């Protein structure tokens, strides 16, 4: 199954424009140097997977891309990250606009203490994506369907989002993120609490999104990375050890650390 998928992917993964480009990025949490000298170019209309052992800085780097790190007091970012050639840490850049363009699904599902409907409708509402209630309903339904959770919640859209099971919450958060139609979608382990079927549905969604957008996904599952991504970045102890075509990384890694990780020797 894995080989089959990647084969298909390879065909569609043609050379793309660079969407996100990072140069010499350093991130510190207080004294702790969490990301070191990361340079990377993330292409448009591509799925890029970040892999690496727990605590290596995947989430941290992901949060740099939409400046969510701004919200952590002790976190300090240096270096240069551009999206479509524009420096996102430029003083003129409004993080709000940036985040509308760069959506995010967090590692821990964090539904709002609101109804399921309102959880999803929240983004479209603040961005004015719907002209009326009917349009909004449509957007919400579409997003919930793409998040592979519509069938489970369609009868209780007014129930609180916090009363869902772990996996349901995670899918709700995915639906919430795609509802605003971001150009770049950052997903931090979006399938960690999902069963294989739901995982497959989310992966389908990712593949679908790739037609138009750029998707970055953090995952601990090599299989998943191999299935959905065209590019893979391997992080280790805050360093970007290797970055390249997914096939290449999984079949023929250059760095010994990458190889050890993939073959299950370092953690």
């Amino acid at each position, binding site marked *: 199954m894995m080989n089959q998928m990647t084969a298909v992917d390879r065909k569609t993964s043609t050379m793309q424009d660079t969407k996100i480009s990072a140069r010499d990025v350093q991130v510190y949490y207080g004294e702790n140097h969490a990301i070191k000298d990361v340079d990377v170019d993330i292409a448009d209309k591509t799925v890029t997977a970040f892999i690496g052992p727990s605590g290596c800085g995947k989430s941290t780097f992901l949060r740099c891309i*939409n400046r*969510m790190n701004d*919200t952590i007091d002790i976190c300090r970012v240096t270096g240069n990250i551009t999206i479509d050639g524009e420096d996102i840490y430029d003083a003129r850049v409004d993080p*709000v*606009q*940036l*985040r*509308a*363009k760069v*959506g*995010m699904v*967090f590692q*821990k599902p*964090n*539904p*709002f*203490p*609101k*109804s399921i409907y309102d959880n999803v409708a*929240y*983004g479209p509402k*603040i*961005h004015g994506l719907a002209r009326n209630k009917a349009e909004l309903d449509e957007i919400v339904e579409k997003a919930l369907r793409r998040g592979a959770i519509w069938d489970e919640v369609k009868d209780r859209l*007014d129930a*609180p989002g*916090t009363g869902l099971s772990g996996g349901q919450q995670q899918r709700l*958060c995915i639906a*919430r*993120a795609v509802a*605003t139609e*971001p150009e770049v979608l950052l997903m931090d382990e979006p399938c960690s609490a999902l069963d294989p079927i739901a995982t497959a549905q989310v992966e389908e969604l990712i593949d679908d999104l790739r037609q138009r957008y750029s998707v970055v996904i953090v995952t601990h599952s090599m299989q998943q990375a191999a299935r959905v991504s065209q590019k893979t970045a391997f992080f280790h102890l805050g360093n970007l050890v290797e970055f390249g075509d997914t096939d290449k990384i999984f079949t023929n890694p250059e760095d010994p650390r990458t190889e050890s990780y993939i073959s299950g020797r370092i953690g």
Partner: protein
Amino acid sequence: MLSTPLIVILCLSIAGWFIAKSRALQVSGGDQRKLASLPKQHALNTALSTALPPLALMIAWLVGMRVASESTGSPTLFHIVTIGLAVAGLALSVLRISPDFRARTASERWVMALLIFASTVAILTTVGIVFSMLFETRNFFSQYDWRDFFFSSTWSPNFRGDSDLGILPLLWGTLYISFIALAFAVPVGMFAAIYLSEYAGPRMRAVAKPAIEILAGIPTIVYGLFALITVGPFLRDYFASPMGFGQSASSVMTAGLVMGIMLIPFVSSLSDDIINAVPQSMRDGSLGLGATKSETIRQVVVPAALPGIVGAILLAASRAIGETMIVVLGAGAAARLSLNPFEAMTTVTVKIVSQLTGDTDFASPETLVAFALGLTLFVITLALNVLALYIVRKYREQYE
């Protein structure tokens, strides 16, 4: 004097703590892992078993003696009984110590009893308040027709008797002044809380929050004089008279605004703590969707903190209803039913105080009306609180 047995019991209780602790370690052979409960919990259980029963007995005795209106009883016998009880409690609880004895459950039962006792204090207070006013209220209504009290729109007490003691203008003044005070304090307090918890840097927060809290501690007489000397004339000269609302320096508006200032910290400080306690992941979720900070606050943070915020606002409203000095000096003492916010009016509370501290015959309706006012206000605020609870419940159900 009850202090001697009190001290003895406290000493026994402290001694019990240490005895139980060492006894527990001893039965475990020095290895607390063999115990079902920690030595500390054995100690707590013994200390509480020693102190609480005699203390409860003492309270009962004290109240009982008063009810029987005897001032002495038999103190020595009673001292022996209480101390005996403490010794018995100590001995029994120490004897029960064994590796299997669940001292945690036992001690938690004592703590629970204390918690329940604490929460009954509120009930007892209410009962006390009602009873301390009921008798005189009945006296009042035996001298004054209740229909006139509840439905008359004139308030005009009189030394010669034959007074009009209608509560309506006072209630109206109370509602009007409280409304203006809250209309000022709630937005200002909420915005201050939001600014402090979401925008202000730690340094500003460290300074501004306690500074604003000082407002709650300034004696109300200062506010009253501020209303009388500064705010009242200012409002009269720049608002009331140019706009044709009258010439009064004392007004509902004056008192309301100044009271609003006093209430700011009630809303801001409590709300700030509650907003601060909303988990960061909620904010992250919203910011991650491209919401601005203010959208996040308005649509995610504040709704999540709502139950607590409502509590803070209710507290402020309560303070507004109970305030005297600011109203006396800011709004005047005249009872009046009017819509004009620049006219002098007064509140129920002010009249409770003034009739109670005045010179009218203390057995006359003019003085006794204070108790009827107090009880009526009590019932009305009770109804409002029931309503508030109902609304909060209804609103909250959407979330949890």
